[in-house]
């Protein structure tokens, strides 16, 4: 099991989501974050004084997957989030020791296997 954390451009979230769902990766958590990478600071002006925006808006995704899904997930994110410009983001893959599904108490790979909700259209 791996925990995949991706930092992407906010405007690429829709593309990444579509790619992940197409790859049958449907469990994810997202957050709005700010970060500093290789990009230049954005300079604005307020009443004649410069205003430096050094941190850029990003979206962070956290996805826990079982081994067969690791490469699929990484590829889906990397392909969908790429623009080729500085600031596309990063993907971090870490070892995951233990997972528990709170509702059922299932653990590890069982907990990561998606459950289709009855009657879901």
């Amino acid at each position, binding site marked *: 099991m791996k925990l995949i954390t991706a930092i992407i451009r906010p405007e690429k979230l829709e593309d990444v989501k579509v790619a992940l769902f197409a790859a049958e990766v449907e469990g994810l958590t997202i957050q709005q974050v700010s970060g500093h990478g290789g990009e230049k600071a954005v300079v604005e*002006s*307020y*009443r*004649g*004084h*410069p*205003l430096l925006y050094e941190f850029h808006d990003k979206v962070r995704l956290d996805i826990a997957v079982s081994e067969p899904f690791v490469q699929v997930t990484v590829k889906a994110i990397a392909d969908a989030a790429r623009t080729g410009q500085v600031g596309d983001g990063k993907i971090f893959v870490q070892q995951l020791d233990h997972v528990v599904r709170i509702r059922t108490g299932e653990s590890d790979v069982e907990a990561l296997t998606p459950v289709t909700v009855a009657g879901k259209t």
Partner: protein
Amino acid sequence: MDHKKRLITILFLLGLLATSWALLAADPSGANTGGIANVPSKVAGKPTLEEIGAAVGQTRVSLNFVWTLSAAFLIWFMQAGFALAETGFTRAKNAAHTMMLNMMAFGLGVIAFWACGFAFQMGGSGSAMGSAVSAPEGMSKLLGPTIGGNVWGLVGGTGFFLSGVSYDVAAFAIFLFQMVFMDTALTIPTGALSERWKLSAFTVYTLVGGAVIYPIFANWAWGGGWLSTLGKYAHLGHGYVDFAGSGVIHLTGGVMSVTGLIVLGPRIGKYAKGVAQAIPGHNLPMAFLGCFILAFGWFGFNAGSTLAGTDLRISVVAVNTMLASGAGACLSYFVTWWKFKRPDPSMSINGLLAGLVAITAPCAFVTAPAAVLIGSIAGVLVVWAALFVENKLKLDDPVGAVAVHGFNGVWGVIALGLFADGTYGGGFNGGPEAGVTGLFYGDAGQLAAQLIGLGSNLVWVGATSFALFKVIDLAIGMRVTAEQELQGLDYSEVSAPAYSGDRPSISTPVFVTRPPAPAPAPAAATLKPAPAGGK
């Protein structure tokens, strides 16, 4: 079939209704409403000349009352404009506090003005009711030294608490109009001093400002005081002329802002090693809305200052006001575009307001091209002044009040002395029969009177407000603590924040005293009120 029948019946009935409305209509065009039958007379429809004269006179005065009061209502709405503009230019953590300053500048100010401010200002200006609304004849106790047989008024002495001789319809109309002007002057410093001003200090300032500082200068200019009689007694044009208050209101507010800023000091973080930093306001659309509301209210401010709807110069006043504000907005828009590569929204707002402040004194006396020129100069001046105040004077004015109201108040008073074209204002302030005439149209005396007015405003308002702020600072302190300032004044000076939802959801408000339990009554009786949390 059934449906069709029903529809036809309904349409028929509607048609019948519409035609009957037209047939039974009384006077839909309005051509026959109002006429000789409406003139009060002993013999209906046949008034005598005296009765017609009385009706015409009362109608003129009624029109002037309605005009003056409606204008005052518009000006009162400007307080909403000030509140929104100032709060938009400041940070979210101080929003409720800044709004509170604006509201209580009215609440406290009106009580102070009612108690004695109005008497000091207008208590010596009483005269017979003429074409414009004026204080009643009984309110004519003007106090001041007598030099060369003429009384040089310094302060009025009747009309306290709107009672006695001032319990009079004209006095009340004048009170309302002058009160909203006073409120405008008082609320200007609330923007400049926002985000670190203690409410207790502000409270004392508002009471003294509304009772003494503002009314005394307003007496000199508008209450029959010595500045207004410079023309009558010293032959300087028409004396100090300030149609709607570039000096009386805006310069007064600007000067009080400067002295307050000197005593109060900059916000924490404004200057890093002496270099001014940007502290962006939290809501520019709010500031824009405030600007629009101010511009709307300004029609009451300027055109209302004729105090007479029968004075048709009101169209010239209103158009000049609009032209100058547009020119001010244009110039600040283009100047900041050129200077900072892109137009600055908050400076453009300041530019529109600067045009309005500058045209406020000369609005009734200048041509349309002059109004555009005055507004244009204001739009450039305000950008330069805002940077000068922050970078050179090191005064931290979050909203640009000193640049907008102070510098452009000065410019407006001078502009009248330069551009007044002599077509209007004959007999103004008891001066010459010719209209008010500026330097460029041949009367240097008018400019001299304007400069004397400026100087006396700087001396009187500057000295008294500086003394007031110093005394407040020594007695109770002007400024909140550094901790309170960093946390936001919404969390210490007022009892609730403006935006309770803007903190993370884990710190949403919780019940300190628990709501009554739904369980049986005896259990509820044992509930002890929880101790007040936090501080």
